């Protein structure tokens, strides 16, 4: 046996001592990294600029983040940075109006169910932002598989609270006390062409209602009006999409004609309405096995969101209206 592996007597002490040492070293390192960044901003030095560039190249596509993330990868530092951009988008760009936020339950997790629109998950981000502004607790939004594993989008989405849409994740989030925003239309909803705007697609296979019944959390219907016009899809190119491995490749008035600038959404006026919560806990957990009940509830939910969308569309004065 090699001597380095021989164990000393006071092993417990040694282990806890080593642990303390580790923690200390870690804290020092993180502090030093933060300070180094802060110092570098102050002075202009060619060498330091070069060093900064070299570092940036080394972490290209892997944004600098804080030392700790929660179990779903949400990063408080990255989120704080994103919040400023979101605030500007909500207030200045889309001039988001909300209704019914006061009725959203505050002290228990809820499952928000919204209509999906726009290519990129702006609707999830904006709903999460307005709910957090009102209640102080940030819901997580569920994201389709293809987007959550898209290069460069993947690290960023996880940092700001995007989670892959699946039953296990929704259950875990609700169990941990996080509210969840789901878009049961899925990619069918996000990739609607402009002619089909605001026509809600099939709600998957009723998974949203089943999760709410199993977890005993209220369902809150949410309608988003305006997001369809942020990225109006004229038509989709299937053959090209297949070649590059995407589920669909849209053509909008600006994309791909303007290149990456075409990804900038149009400044349409948004209205987000939160409906009355639908309690599910009194139905009991046996209801989660009643397929007929689930499909009926799913259909009712879809009809309600559709009517909310229609009402808000009639009420607005124009797509870009004041």
């Amino acid at each position, binding site marked *: *046996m*090699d001597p380095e*592996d021989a*164990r000393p007597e006071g092993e417990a002490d040694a*282990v806890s001592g*080593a*642990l303390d040492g*580790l*923690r200390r*070293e*870690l804290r020092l*390192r*993180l502090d030093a*990294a933060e300070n180094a960044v802060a110092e570098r901003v102050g002075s202009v030095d060619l060498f330091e600029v070069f060093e900064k560039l070299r570092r940036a190249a*080394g*972490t*290209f*596509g*892997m*944004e*600098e*983040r*804080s*030392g*700790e*993330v929660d*179990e*779903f*990868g949400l*990063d408080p530092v990255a989120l704080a940075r994103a919040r400023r951009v979101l605030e500007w988008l909500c207030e200045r760009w889309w001039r988001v109006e909300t209704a019914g936020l006061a009725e959203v339950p505050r002290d228990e997790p809820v499952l928000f169910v919204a209509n999906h629109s726009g290519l990129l998950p702006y609707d999830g981000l904006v709903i999460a932002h307005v709910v957090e502004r009102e209640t102080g607790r940030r819901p997580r939004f569920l994201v389709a*598989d*293809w987007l*959550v*594993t*898209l*290069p*460069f989008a*993947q*690290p960023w989405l*996880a940092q700001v609270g995007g*989670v*892959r849409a*699946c*039953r*296990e*994740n929704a259950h*875990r989030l609700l169990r941990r006390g996080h509210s969840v925003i789901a878009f049961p239309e899925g990619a069918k909803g996000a990739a609607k062409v402009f002619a089909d705007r605001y026509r809600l697609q099939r709600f998957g296979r009723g998974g949203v209602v089943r999760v709410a019944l199993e977890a005993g959390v209220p369902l809150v219907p949410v309608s988003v009006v305006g997001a369809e016009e942020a990225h109006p899809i004229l038509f989709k190119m299937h053959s090209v999409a297949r070649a590059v491995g995407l589920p669909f490749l849209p053509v909008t008035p600006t994309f791909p004609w303007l290149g990456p600038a075409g990804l900038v959404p149009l400044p349409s006026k948004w209205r987000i309405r939160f409906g009355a919560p639908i309690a599910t806990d009194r139905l009991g957990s046996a209801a989660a096995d009643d397929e007929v009940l689930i499909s009926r509830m799913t259909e009712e939910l879809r009809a309600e969101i559709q009517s909310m969308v229609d009402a808000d569309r009639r009420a607005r004065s124009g797509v870009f209206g004041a």
Partner: protein
Amino acid sequence: MRVPRSIAITGLRSFVGKRVLRRVREAEPEVQVHGIDLQRPYGLDPAVRFHAVDLADPTSDGRLAELLQKEGVEAVLHAAFRSQPRADLEADHELETIGSLHLLHACAAARVRRLVLASSTMLYGPRPDNPNFLTEDHPLRGHPAAHNVANRVEVEELVATWRERHQGVEVTVLRPCWVMGPGYQDSVTSYFARSVVPTVMGYDPLLQFVHEEDCLRAFEIALLEGRPGVFNVVGRGVLPLSTLLRTAGKRPLPIPAPLLYRLGDQFSQVQTGDPPAGFYDYLRYLWVADGERGWAAFGEPEYTTLEAWMSFVSSRRMRRYR
């Protein structure tokens, strides 16, 4: 049966085999230990009875059965697996899959009462459609390009059917995630030991580690006290790859996925010690396992993911200075 009177360990030269043997000798010196491997390991404890058996040999099941019965072996730890996949796919398959089959036959014939299998959470496979936390009930989908993972999936299937047929036997399957620590070495640690680490461009997955002592403790408890079932053995907490590299002062080298996979394949073919192509999917998609069941059975781990990682990093740094 609490503590078995006589135990057998296959794969004495593997990390788990070698270190569990040492822990058992310290904890229960009265237990007679039989070591099974191809060759006698250097510096083997003289109290251990060594038997040179090639598990891949077609007659090994008969020899093993005779041996286990004659020595009255009550518990078997099966850890005869490769830590570094070899380019010789056939030889690996013979040893890992067929060797396990022979051992299972021998255990049945000798009426062994307890069997502990060393497995891995890598067997769940890195898939874009994985939930954020994989429980023990999730199907083992492996990885099509990683033959060592495919072999181990087959072994788990063999053990699962074997357990069905031999109901009275306490079967424990332990699935540790990537192990980190001062003494552990495999293809993963050699990948992370570099100062410039190639990563998949545009991806920053959440990773989890378990410290070698926490991992070994689970094996010791399962072998000596018995905890029938399947358990993930993981540390608490998850961290993105970028944060891990930053705290260790390593530099990521992001390479676009198609190029990285092709390069990785070429390098592993000529055996430069680089990880095989399939390995990089583990740095691209989520495959984090849920450790609740394991923590309940084997106690709270002493090291979190970050602490396990830092213990690995600091021990490697010491080695460089020595």
